[in-house]
């Protein structure tokens, strides 16, 4: 107790609702002031997390992110604002936190988290909170936490569903006990492709913040050993048991996480039965007279938001083969979707059905709007 930092009069006034809670109290609040939490990601999950941890008086908060605030973030990333569109996310978050609670010391890491820097960055923190958006970083965060013996407060979201738990806490299971391996790329859609209800990360991120505070204070029962599932559409919470996997391989070092998640593109690219074109390349070809049949494989509601004015046909990628008979075999076919993933799958399906003149618009209509025709909206 005597090693814990004192609270100023301003802090006593600020945290009064905590101080009168027996379970937190003066000692608990001083523990929070002495605590160090690292939040990986300042996006959908990181936004509510950072706001609540800062408001609660966690003394030192580290944030790792190298992205910039985009208008499409603001539907859910509430730490950022219209005034910070185009600003780096760490700078935007820093300004908001400084206003919310100037007592918080912020450590800024404006860099991608990698196998090279993770152990060094994590070393100084008591709890790591995973607010990332991709499988390679999630496995990296997990493995670094296991190697350093630090709790990993986990949350992830998709459309209307969320998952949360605490990994690697007091000998409890970790991410690899739950899912030994990641899905191959393309099989599980991202939020950018699948969409996400803006409030959903608010619920899951706030649960992560709650678990973080409980770990720091040493109170209550954490989600360690339990996977919490949240279904916003039917407002249902469920709990599943999470155990140490006796067959799990021990984690002894950090690895190549892009490769582990199948994201090293070189070996796959040459064998693809279609040609990839960037938006700029496709545009240049069209300028030079190229006249492909343009197939949009998104859902009709997406085409209502924005469509290429020269698209010939709209048909969702899942059952693109049902229209194969009506597609031209003697003409180039340019296939596109929102970001390029679904159209690549459609190209593969069509190639398997004997089509040979297939072109995939890499980056999809989003890249077209960004790089070729800025009058088109992005979504």
């Amino acid at each position, binding site marked *: 107790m005597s090693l814990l930092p004192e609270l100023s009069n301003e802090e006593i006034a600020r945290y009064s609702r905590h101080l009168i809670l027996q379970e937190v109290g003066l000692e608990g609040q001083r523990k929070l002031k002495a605590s160090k939490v690292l939040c990986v990601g300042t996006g959908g999950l990181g936004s509510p997390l950072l706001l609540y941890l800062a408001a609660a008086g966690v003394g030192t908060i580290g944030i790792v992110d190298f992205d910039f605030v985009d208008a499409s973030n603001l539907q859910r990333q509430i730490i950022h604002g219209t005034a910070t569109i185009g600003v780096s996310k760490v700078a935007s978050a820093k300004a908001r936190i400084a206003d919310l609670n100037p007592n918080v010391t912020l450590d800024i890491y404006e860099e991608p988290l990698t196998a090279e820097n993770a152990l060094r960055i994590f070393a100084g923190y008591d709890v790591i909170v995973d607010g990332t958006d991709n499988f390679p970083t999630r496995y990296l965060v997990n493995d670094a936490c296991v190697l350093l013996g630090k709790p990993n407060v986990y949350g992830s979201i998709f459309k209307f*569903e969320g998952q949360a738990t605490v990994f690697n806490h007091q000998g409890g299971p970790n991410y690899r006990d739950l899912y030994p391996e990641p899905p191959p790329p393309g099989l*599980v859609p991202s939020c950018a492709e699948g969409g996400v209800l803006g409030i959903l990360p608010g619920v899951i991120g706030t649960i992560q913040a709650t678990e973080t505070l409980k770990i720091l204070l040493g109170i209550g029962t954490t989600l360690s050993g339990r996977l919490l599932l949240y279904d916003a559409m039917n407002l249902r919470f469920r709990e*599943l*048991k999470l155990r140490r996997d006796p067959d799990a391989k021990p984690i002894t070092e950090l690895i190549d996480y892009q490769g582990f998640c199948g994201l090293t593109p070189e070996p796959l690219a040459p064998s693809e039965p279609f040609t990839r074109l960037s938006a700029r390349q496709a545009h240049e070809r069209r300028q030079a007279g190229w006249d492909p049949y343009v197939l949009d494989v998104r859902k009709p509601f997406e085409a209502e938001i924005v469509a290429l004015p020269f698209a010939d046909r709209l048909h969702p990628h899942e059952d693109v083969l049902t229209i194969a008979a009506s597609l031209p075999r003697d003409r180039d076919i340019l296939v596109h979707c929102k970001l390029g993933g679904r159209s690549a799958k459609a190209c593969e399906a069509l190639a398997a059905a004997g089509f040979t003149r297939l072109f995939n618009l890499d980056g999809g209509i989003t890249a077209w709007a960004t790089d070729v025709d800025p009058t088109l909206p992005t979504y």
Partner: protein
Amino acid sequence: MATLHIPTPLRAYTEGQAAVRVDGTTVGEALAALESAHPSLTKHLRDASGKLRSFVNVYVGDEDIRFLEREATPVGADTEITIVPSIAGGGR
């Protein structure tokens, strides 16, 4: 018969259904019934050798079948089977 809960990412392959009633006395039989009704699900649930993929967990009640009898785990009329795949969203 058992009730099988389908997670959001896989509902694209079950015509949007969130839960289905399926025949079977084991998890494996229940999954086979689901897959025969919705063949496009199989490649998302199983690898080329037919094994459940390592990023797809199946629970009977609140227990992971990896810690029960895997696909031989018995199910009854009141059993709730839940498929829980790995999701990664949260940041961008």
